[in-house]
């Protein structure tokens, strides 16, 4: 009796282990769709902290782990072919290109607004590039550091065209849907208070549930960053029945976020962003970068492309890090137009996201 019992227990344990092993590898494959398969086994036990530790861990692992959004077309979206695409995704690719010379060496971790900071804090991801607004609290208490903003955004509202809602005051006596865990939620309250608007706020954890509720008329308006509104509007059943109100109620600088404690890693991500800015300013594109490398005379461009000086070494990277970013991913303009340009369904005029020379806010410090 007892022997039989132990035998069965042992068998069960073996089966459980086998199942766990299957589940584990299956899960890894699903998560690491675009990451090298052989590298998907080693997982860092704890977060890498301290100067240089993140880069060392990433190199050791062989690929970058990037926390992204998978539900906002144009920024971070899992398309029909199971590939991630979007503005934020391209910056993940740019960081991978700078480190490995290969933009495909990225594993994407789709995160909800709520999960993202924990994932960064615990070291599950190396960098968070998921339309995250730079705020003081997040820069300090949440334990992250924001590198330079990649997209200047502002919060807006989407409403039905036939609802007759045009100004903020018209939102009085309406129901407004919003996603939890966002700056949007807090902004909304400030706006409603400041304008004496009495509205019912319905908060959703799941972005899909929130949009479904808006579409079914549970709410009169949905509020989030305008970029998100533009992107999600394309996914509504009848996009033409909806319009984005002509009000912007907040500043939403969106950009990559890294963990506290590793200044080298902060610098790398920061300067990858600057490299895309400067490449646009200098007219270097993925098409002409090889040609420019042959012929460049401007010393700043030469040091950007690693022909002069050792800027790459100072970041702990190869000297052709920026060349790789431009070659494989492109400059800021290319990234922007590929995902948010006039030829895409998620067209957003560049506005503040233009170079400083064209009245925008994009300004890269000198590459020297």
């Amino acid at each position, binding site marked *: 009796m007892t022997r039989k019992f132990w035998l069965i227990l042992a068998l069960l344990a073996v089966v459980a282990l086998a199942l766990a092993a299957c589940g584990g590898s299956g899960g890894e494959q699903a998560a690491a769709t675009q990451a090298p398969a052989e590298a998907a086994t080693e997982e860092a036990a704890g977060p890498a902290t301290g100067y240089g530790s993140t880069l060392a861990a990433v190199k050791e692992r062989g690929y970058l782990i990037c926390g992204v959004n998978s539900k906002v077309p144009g920024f971070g979206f899992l398309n029909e072919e199971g590939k991630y695409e979007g503005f934020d995704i391209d910056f993940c690719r740019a960081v991978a290109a700078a480190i490995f010379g290969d933009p495909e060496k990225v594993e994407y971790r789709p995160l909800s607004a709520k999960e993202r900071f924990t994932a960064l804090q615990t070291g599950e991801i190396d960098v968070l590039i998921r339309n995250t607004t730079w705020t003081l609290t997040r820069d300090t208490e949440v334990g992250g550091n924001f590198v330079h903003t990649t997209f200047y955004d502002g919060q807006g509202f989407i409403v039905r065209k036939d609802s007759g809602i045009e100004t903020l005051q018209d939102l*009085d006596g309406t*129901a407004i849907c919003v996603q939890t*865990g966002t700056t949007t939620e807090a902004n*909304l309250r400030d706006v409603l208070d400041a304008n004496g608007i009495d509205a*019912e706020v319905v908060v959703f954890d799941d972005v899909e*549930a929130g949009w479904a509720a808006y579409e079914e*008329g549970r709410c009169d308006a949905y509020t989030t960053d305008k970029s998100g509104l533009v992107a999600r509007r394309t996914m509504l059943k009848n996009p033409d029945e909806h319009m984005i109100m002509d009000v912007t109620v907040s500043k939403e600088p969106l950009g990559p976020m890294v963990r506290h404690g590793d200044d080298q890693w902060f610098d790398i991500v920061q300067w990858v962003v600057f490299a895309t800015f400067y490449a646009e300013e200098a007219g270097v594109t993925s098409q002409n970068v090889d040609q420019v490398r042959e012929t460049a005379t401007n010393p700043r461009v030469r040091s950007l492309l690693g022909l002069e000086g050792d800027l790459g070494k100072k970041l702990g990277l190869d000297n052709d890090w920026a060349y790789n970013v431009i070659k494989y991913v492109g400059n800021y303009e290319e990234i922007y137009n590929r995902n948010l340009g006039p030829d895409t369904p998620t067209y957003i005029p560049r506005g503040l996201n233009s170079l400083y020379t064209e009245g925008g806010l994009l300004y890269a410090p000198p590459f020297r």
Partner: protein
Amino acid sequence: MWRDLTWQNFWRDERFLRVFGQVVFVVVVLVVGRFLYVNMYTALEQRSLLPDFGFLNTVAGFDIGEVPSFIDYSGASPNKMAFLVGLVNTLRVSALGIVFATIVGVIVGTARVLPNPLARGLATAYVEFLRNVPLLVLLVFWYRGVFIVLPRLAETPLVWGRQDLPDGKFRAWLILSNRGMSMAWPVGTESWPAYRLWLWLAVLAAVAVYVGLTWYARRTGRAPLTLVWAVAAFFAVAALGFLVVQATTGQAPLRWAVPQVKKRLVAGGLKLSPEFLALLSGLVIYTGAYIAEVVRAGLQAVSKGQIEAARALGLTTFQTLRFVVFPQALRVIVPPLTSQYLNLTKNSTLAVAIGYPDLFNVAGTIFNQTGRSIEVIVIIMGVYLSFSLITSAFMNWYNRKIRLVER
């Protein structure tokens, strides 16, 4: 008892092994626990995120969709008030859920043992179907498939008792639309404070009747329906008080607040949001299926001989149920019923999927706005643990009360 233990082969001695096994177990638990604690502490310390509950007093800064009328919450309230709102919302849905799930469970569970094949078949289908669908799926179904696809408020809401107003708007006793359900609800008027005294009197009357009848039952051996008479006494005194207050102050202590469409929302009356309705329906229907099985098991545990004996003694059907079947069935029902109540309370955290601001949902928002994950999780765990312990303490007390007294 250890006298004949020798050093030569003590590791084969069963008495030694028994103690040794327990010691090893305790040591393993302590080592693992210490590892987890030290790991968390050092990791948090490195990131200067050591626990600090000061955030409870800072401004929450976000709105909550459903705030109970007796709590004064706005975005400018501190985080602890936001927690309180979430807590009350959880209690509200759990308490109502437990009541309705019990009613559904008792009806369906009883139907499962009826001789009528239609009733039994329907009840079986209900139980088998609902026990085998994940609760989350049910909730999403109720929300997206039922409540938010109801007719739109601006178009043709379902109304009952419509009264048109001069300005072209209308009010109604019940308005059901994709913005939720609003119904007329009594609210206190100026003479309410006077009436409150009468309500206390009514409670006293009910208690007096209950105690009196219990004493009477014990003395005479008769069995009056104690609880029914107590409730009747309450309502009798309450009704009398209502008339007296109305006569003396010239104003009824309660009036109906009738819901009215105001812009794009419904104002007045009792308002139940689609999120609340979907969560409540999901929890009731789902847990009801489990409770039905518990009830069925309890009823079937009473042996047939008991019922036949009761009949032979001349008890009516009702008396058989009341004095023979239910007291015995309850002893079997109560312990697993407690688990179902606890499950319902804990399952209410799935509210987060459909946007109902229960404790877990609100806590998630607080955690996001403040970044205080460990503290928030500790609070959530503490609250649900207390809920569960209180519920099970009550149910254990009830279980002791009804169990077989052996003399």
